[in-house]
Structure formats: structure tokens, C-alpha cells
């Protein structure tokens, strides 16, 4: 995988069909655990979401075989992997490279800067996205780190690998 930070996002990523459905099914239990843990430890972020606790967010990491569907309702949390041919009607969609999302959660990258440089694309309800961003940004430390830690040393190793890969791949672009 090569990452060119300056490049345009591909117009229509793959992510339909049998493979996408299988991948989505495999990852689902992990997503469920991660989101419940984050919600339990950072209950205050729901207040910042305000009226958008019930909004359906589609987070679309373009290099993944599937997209993610988040509904941050504290009473009925939903975070699931969905094939791109079976996406729900989204209140807001956020598209970008997964490793960019990781950096945002790590608070290595600034969301506005990513947006200005066109590395991040937002469609739908902009206020919903702004609220989600502000809610997550009020969490101390790294959500990515926290999620990885739930899976012990293997989890941390995978996260470390992803981060190294990203920084290696990004190097030739030289813009960071």
C-alpha cells in the first residue's frame, strides 16, 4: 500500500460483494467491544454530541473493504462494519484513509488541516460531524491506544505496526 498525502481520494472505493460481507462479519465483535469500552470510560462525550446522539454516521476508510456505521446513542450504541453496497442512510459521511482517522484519534493530526488539504471529505450534516469531532477531541489521551490496549500486547503490536507503516509510506510525500 502506498500513501500519497497529496493525492485525491479515489472516487469510489471497492467494498461490495462476498469478500466485503465476510470481512465486515469478522471485524464486528471487535468493534462492538471497542465502542462500548470507549463509551463507558468517556461518558461526558455524549453531552457534546447533543441532538446528534441519534445521528447515523458513516465513516468510510477508503482502503478498507467495508465502511463503518456509528450511531452514538448512549442508550443503544451502534458501531458496525457494513459493506459499501449496504450502507445505511447516513446523516453524515466522513471519508478518508484509515490511517488518517487513526491520527485524528491519536490527536497527531488536526481535523481542520486534514479537511483543508482534502485528505478528509465530509458530506451530509456538517454540524453532526463538528459535534462528533469536538466530542472525541475532549477525550484525554489516545482512543486508538485505548482500543489497542483492550487486546493486550497483540493489539498494541498491530497499532504500532500500522503507525510505522503509515509514517514510512508517508515519507516520500515529504509534506508532513
Amino acid at each position, binding site marked *: 500500500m502506498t500513501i500519497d498525502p497529496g493525492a485525491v481520494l479515489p472516487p469510489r472505493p471497492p467494498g461490495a460483494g462476498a469478500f466485503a460481507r465476510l470481512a465486515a462479519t469478522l471485524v464486528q465483535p471487535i468493534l462492538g467491544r471497542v465502542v462500548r469500552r470507549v463509551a463507558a470510560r468517556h461518558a461526558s462525550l455524549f453531552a457534546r454530541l447533543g441532538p446528534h446522539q441519534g445521528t447515523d454516521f458513516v465513516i468510510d476508510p477508503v482502503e478498507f473493504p467495508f465502511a463503518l456505521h456509528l450511531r452514538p446513542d448512549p442508550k443503544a450504541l451502534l458501531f458496525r462494519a457494513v459493506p459499501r453496497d449496504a450502507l445505511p442512510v447516513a446523516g453524515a459521511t466522513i471519508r478518508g484513509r484509515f490511517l488518517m482517522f487513526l491520527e485524528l484519534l491519536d490527536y497527531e493530526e488536526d481535523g481542520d488541516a486534514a479537511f*483543508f488539504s482534502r485528505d478528509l471529505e465530509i458530506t451530509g450534516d456538517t454540524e453532526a460531524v*463538528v459535534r462528533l469531532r*469536538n466530542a472525541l477531541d475532549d477525550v484525554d489521551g489516545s482512543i486508538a491506544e485505548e482500543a489497542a490496549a483492550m487486546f493486550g500486547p497483540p493489539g498494541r503490536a498491530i497499532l504500532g505496526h500500522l503507525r510505522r507503516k503509515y509514517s514510512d509510506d508517508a515519507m516520500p510525500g515529504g509534506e508532513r
Partner: protein
Amino acid sequence: MSLAELICPAGTPAALRTAVDAGADAVYCGFQDATNARNFPGLNFTPEELEAAVAYAHARGTKVLLALNTYPPAGKVDLWRHAADTGARIGVDAFIVADMGVADYIARTHPGVRLHLSVQAAASSPEAIRYYVENFGVKRVVLPRILTIPEIRKIRQDIPCEIETFIFGNHGLMVEGRCSLTNYLTGQSTNMDGVCSPASDVEYIRDEATGEMSSCLNGFTIDRFGPEEKAGYPTICKGRYTAPHRPEGYYAFEEPVSLNLSRLLPELIDAGVHAFKIEGRQRSKAYVRSVVSSFRRAVDDIRAGRTANIEDLVALTEGQKQTQGAFETKKWR
């Protein structure tokens, strides 16, 4: 030499702690309502959060300034008064105000708390500044981003209060506190509601065929970007429009640039500026950490007589272009 305090933005409690840890001398923040000019969704502090934040900052020697810098519409003045009362009870170090009625209330009710004059008051002459100093006991003025350094030096000599200037961040084009552009297109007022191009009215529309992206405000296309072009938020004063002799569309007011005065810091300190303000309460912790720590090093270097080595902050700036704006030359006007 002036103290050259660094005044840093905090949109959330986590951002406030980040700014304090990165070396802010003071942070500024606001409540979750129309009493401040960054009344954005999901941003700002509840009274309980502010109380904890003040404790965190004070324990580390950092001041907390509370922005009450909007203009209450008639009939709603109490919201601003209650915010001031709450801030005073919590023990903020200063109020940043713009409205004369709000300033008068605080000067009479909380005479022990410092008053700073917000950029939203648009005081750009020694006489205007002295009006607020003499009538409300204002201790510091935040200057509009429209003056050159020689003009700032001259003002400094003519006023009996401290000067704070913006050094980094969003570069507002209009005289602050005198702009109703957002209200004209959206029905939400910058002065009365504390919003500027509210996210609730913003929509990005991507043309799948061409890869072009339009940034729209309440249905009006503020700008349109080619597939590889750096984008900007649909702020009306940074949009591209056509005029009769400019049918191709042009940035009628300003390009989407950010203010970055890092190279002018020594001159600003020499001109007698007391405090440097970093814009961006709506930005992330990543932004706060990166910008605050960079400027902390730069200011410390200058004050120690070393040459400041400012690393490139371009990637954090809007549209990834930067300007020294009016500060460098009056040709900007």
C-alpha cells in the same frame, strides 16, 4: 522588554489542559452559549467544567480568561450577566468583553476582576481605547488585525493599558464586532449568537463527475474547489465571487489564508506588545499542542536573546497558505 505572554485557545477542557501543558501563560475560553464568539456545536465549557479547568490551570501557574465578547440583544442581557457572575464565582483571571452594557455591569458588580477589551469591540485608535479604559477600567486591549507594527508602537505610547495582538490563526477580514454577513445569509448573528458560518448551514457538495467540491452556506455557493485544490471553510469573507468585470470569479475579500506572525515576533515585542494571542478555540488538541509549543519555544528563545527557530506551521493553516496580513505593510489594505 514586555512580558510577551502567550494567550492560547481552549475549546474543550482537554484542549485547555493541552494548552496549559504546552506552555500557555493564559488560556481563553467560553461557556456553551451565545455569550462568546465561538458558540459552536459541541464546543466550550459548562460551569462545572470551567471550575475544574480553572483549578487545573491555576495549579500550574496559568491564567484563565473568560470570553464574554458578544453583544446581548435587548431582552437577553441577563444571560451575559449570569455568565459574568459565574465566572467571578469560579475565579477566572479576566473577562474579555465587547459590549458597553456588559463592561459596565462587570465594572460595577465585579470590580476585582480584570477587564480585557475584546477585538470584537473594534477599538483601533488611542481615543477609542482610552474611552474603554477611562470608563470601565479596562486593563488590556486586544487590537484589531488591521494595524501595522509602527502603528501599534505608536498606539502603545498613547494608551494607559496593555496591548494584546493576534499572532496566529484564522485571519478575519472584516472589522470584528461589525460584521453581519453570516446573519444576512443564515439568520444567525455573529454579534448576538456568537457564530460565523454555522456548521448547521454548511454543506459540502462533491461533483462525482468532475471531482470538484462546492462549499455552501444555507444553499449559497461560497467557493468551489478543483479536485486537487486546497479547500477552505465556507466563510463568507473568504469566498470566491463574480463581479461585472471579474466574471471568472475571484476572492473578493481575501484568499483562504491564515495569519502567521512568527517572523515578526521580535519586532512586536520591541513595539511593546504585552501578550500574543493564538486564534483557534474551534480547532483540535493537535492544533493547540503543536501551535502553542512552537510559539512557546520561539518566545522563550527571543526573550533569552537567541534567534527563534520557528518550524513550519503551514500545514496547520487554512488552505495551507499564510500571510502576515496588515501587520507587515499597509499595502494589504
